[in-house]
């Protein structure tokens, strides 16, 4: 597999603030790679360094094996889709898309054919003469993508391009963008603070925090096997518990919570008894009124505080009987649990395999 983009130990400092701290990763040809992180984590700075709009303080960026040091953005084989798209309002759709080709000095008829072909590809045939302000949000999005794709960049960089869209359109564009990427086969590097965008679209996701990568993995692994507490909390919802390791075997440990409850959970790495830990549980890992015959479950009773109905994503907000904390419990919508009312006491069980445990820092 060819490596399209290779970033090696890239650091960017602004005076005494380190925006990006020794970040390394590689993206293979045709992959959809996402960088996920909260706002201010340095992901935009990283993207701008790849595009050439900012120079890294130290570190190397290579595209298809060619070092990009000192190469200005107009000479790099990458294109960037800006957060607010940055379509040129003084030009129509056709001129916007043709802009990059004209800069390369391509033949007029070739340009017209290419513009036509790429607009067809993003389902905007015949839009050449439209003005930018006549387009809807989703159409502008596609013009911005067409304007970059027509140049056949090695890597297409996307800076939260869906951020300005409303929810319904965003959901739709997510699927469209993924389909488009599969169709054109260009390598995408996508940055976002929206975990669902990253998980849905990407082949691989890097989670970034305070200028550093916490974990690079497939969306499935990020969700199921987060390697740091930050990833566990940032990707998907989690219920957090603190506790102390009491006993442990090869791969499981008994953890005592401050309230005195004992939970058994699997361990990724060995932790000595007495270690303070944070325990994370996904809402869907908690089963409501599990079958009494399953012996291996950790069981406890909660009081339902409220029912958060949200279609397939419905949850119960509940307090454990003996602890002063709130838990989110997934509420499957097969009408099996319709009888649950606010203030009911409900038994909750979870399997030791679904616990995620990290030593406290």
């Amino acid at each position, binding site marked *: 597999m060819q490596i399209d983009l290779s970033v090696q130990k890239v650091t960017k400092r602004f005076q005494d603030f380190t925006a990006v701290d020794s970040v390394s990763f590689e993206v293979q040809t045709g992959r959809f790679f996402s960088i996920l992180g909260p706002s201010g984590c340095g992901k935009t700075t990283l993207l701008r360094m790849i*595009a*050439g*709009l900012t120079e890294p303080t130290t570190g190397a960026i290579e595209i298809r094996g060619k070092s990009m040091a000192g190469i*200005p*953005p*107009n*000479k790099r084989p990458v*294109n*960037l889709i*800006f*957060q*607010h798209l*940055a379509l*040129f*309002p*003084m030009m129509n759709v056709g001129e916007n898309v043709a*802009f*990059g080709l004209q*800069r*390369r000095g391509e033949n007029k008829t070739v340009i017209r054919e290419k513009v036509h072909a790429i607009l067809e590809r993003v389902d905007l045939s015949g839009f050449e003469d439209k003005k930018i302000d006549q387009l809807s949000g989703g159409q502008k999005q596609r013009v911005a993508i067409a*304007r*970059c794709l027509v*140049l056949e960049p090695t890597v297409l960089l996307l800076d939260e391009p869906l951020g300005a869209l409303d929810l319904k359109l965003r959901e739709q564009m997510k699927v469209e963008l993924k389909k488009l990427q599969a169709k054109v086969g260009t390598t995408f590097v996508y940055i976002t603070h929206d975990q669902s965008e990253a998980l849905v679209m990407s082949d691989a996701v890097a989670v970034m925090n305070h200028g550093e990568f916490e974990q690079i993995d497939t969306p499935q692994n990020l969700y199921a096997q987060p390697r740091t507490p930050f990833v566990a909390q940032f990707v998907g919802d989690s219920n957090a518990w603190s506790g102390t390791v009491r006993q442990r075997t090869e791969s499981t440990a008994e953890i005592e919570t401050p309230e005195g409850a004992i939970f058994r959970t699997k361990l990724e790495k060995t932790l000595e008894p007495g270690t303070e830990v944070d325990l994370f549980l996904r809402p869907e890992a908690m089963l409501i009124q599990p079958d009494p015959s399953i012996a291996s479950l950790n069981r406890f009773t909660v009081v339902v505080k409220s029912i958060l109905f949200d279609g397939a994503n419905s949850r119960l907000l509940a307090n454990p009987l003996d602890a002063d904390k709130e838990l989110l419990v997934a509420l499957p919508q097969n009408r099996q649990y319709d009888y649950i009312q606010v203030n009911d006491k409900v038994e909750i069980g979870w399997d030791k395999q679904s616990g995620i445990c990290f030593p406290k820092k």
Partner: protein
Amino acid sequence: MKSQYRWGLLFFLSPVLLWLVLLIVLPQIDLLIMSFRAENDFGELVWSVSNYLIFFREPIYWLTFVRTAVYSILVTFLTFVIALPIAFYITKVVNPRFQGFLTLLLLLPFWVSELVRVYGWMILLRETGVINHFLLKLGILNQPIEMLYRDATMVLGLVYTSMLFMVVPLLSVLDSLDNSLIEAAYDLGANMWTILFKIIIPHATPGIVSGSIVVFMLTLGNYLTPNLMGGKNSLWFTEQIYNQFIASFNWNQGSAFGFLLLFLSSIVVWLGLKLSRRSLRKVVQ
């Protein structure tokens, strides 16, 4: 209720209306009438277009007229060429903290009157002036040279006087230019010149047009700067008007010249708007 509003509007509008009618409209009508009156052979004032015919018959008049127009256009263009990088630097390059300070520096000279500023230039440029003094001291010149009373000096003074009226509209229009448009163009392969001509100037056109109109009109109607810095050679059309009114005491001829100048500025502005495909209403906004 409705009539009350009307009276209220009239009440507050009346100072403006009085100002407009008494000080601008009425005198203009009087001048217009005067421009079409001339003495006949018997020394009586009669209706005539002879004042206008004189303008076309005497080459000195219409040559001055054309010269004034050409130099005004040149001054407007030079002002734009100098003002655009300044406005771009202030809005896009410099640290936002210093933007206000730099704008203030631009404004500062305009707190003193034009007369004082022109005299300042004269002190610098005249034969015994500051620049000649230093050039002699440094041995670059053996003889002091007269820098005043040349066309170039006059253009310099006019550009300097008009600078602010071009920079201010450009500042506001460039401020509204999204930086990411420039970056996007750069990212798509454009070089500096393409960005200037394809992105910055098209975006700045409204500011360029309104700034140019103001600078052109002010330059065309300027009397002080051409007279002081260009001297008698400046041949600025406003001087012809002044001469008719004050020196020859021929008010009829003077007002005819005045209306010719008004007509000239209107036609050039109209042409400019046509060429840049703008409507006056949009520019005034």
